[in-house]
């Protein structure tokens, strides 16, 4: 691996509290999430996901991504496995790296991403205003620029 560009990654094991705040709004979202899963309602499930991860807007492209993710959730059965905690190993990354996250992403994930970028030596951290959890859809030019820039640092 010559370089690493991370787009709003999940960071298992990060010290940031990895739970959404227990607000009435989030409680309602969680209840709707449970109902949509039980009913196997792809559109409802996509709608809940958009409320958490797609705050930059329910565009047709974004909703199709969420529907695709919803179908995957519903078809996982019992195959889903816990992600291994990797935060403690981020210091082992020894290639040019960059991490992008948007300030409209899920707040606990933003915190975990800040901590991850700080734990990777020389990582270029970019907080993108107004961007949610769908960087390639929302800010494709910024994503491409980050890839190009990071590869250049790796001598490409």
């Amino acid at each position, binding site marked *: 691996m010559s370089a690493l560009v991370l787009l709003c990654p999940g960071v298992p094991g990060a010290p940031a509290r990895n739970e*959404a705040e227990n607000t009435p709004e989030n409680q309602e979202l969680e209840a709707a999430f449970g109902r949509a899963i*039980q*009913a196997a309602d792809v559109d409802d499930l996509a709608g809940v996901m958009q409320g958490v*991860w797609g705050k930059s807007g329910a565009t047709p492209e974004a909703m199709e991504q969420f529907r695709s993710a919803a179908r995957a959730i519903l*078809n996982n059965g019992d195959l889903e496995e816990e992600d291994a905690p990797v935060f403690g190993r981020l210091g082992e990354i020894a290639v040019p790296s960059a991490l992008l996250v948007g300030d409209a992403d899920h707040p606990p994930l933003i915190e975990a991403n800040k901590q991850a970028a700080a734990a990777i030596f020389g990582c270029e951290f970019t907080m993108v205003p107004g961007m949610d959890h769908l960087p390639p859809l929302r800010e494709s030019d910024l994503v491409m620029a980050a890839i190009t820039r990071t590869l250049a640092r790796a001598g490409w």
Partner: protein
Amino acid sequence: MTDAFFAMKAKATAAMTVLGELGIEYTVHTYPHDPRHGSYGAEAAEALGVPPARVFKTLVAAVDGALAVAVVPVTGQLDLKALAAAAGGKRAAMADVTAAERATGYVAGGISPLGHRKRLPVIVDRGALDFPTVFCSGGRRGLEIELSPADLVRAAGATVAALARL
């Protein structure tokens, strides 16, 4: 908030949790639920490619006003008189959907015979014992669990009776 919600993952259903706690072996089968399909049970049999006689639907009825759960093959109809007798009552009628969902904790079309929110009597049709394994809802639409009929009866704390009119 739960980790499953944060990660947008489907957590194990109450039915799967019960089976896990009892150490019962089972297999999970998923398929894309089509809301246009007229029958949840027949849809499961078609989607999984298994004989419908091995796929069991979970029906909630009111026996003398108290809810009871009947597990019958999708090829059959629930004999309400037989259910009433098996549950030690006189009269049985299909339960109101909202009451069934509230008592079981599942949505209609995804009601499992296992892991109910309230403790309900469960009666499994005798025909289940004819097969090495049977299929029943795992607790949501598009999710079936396959297990031995003996394990189904044990996990549900069920009694066995002839309930189905084929």
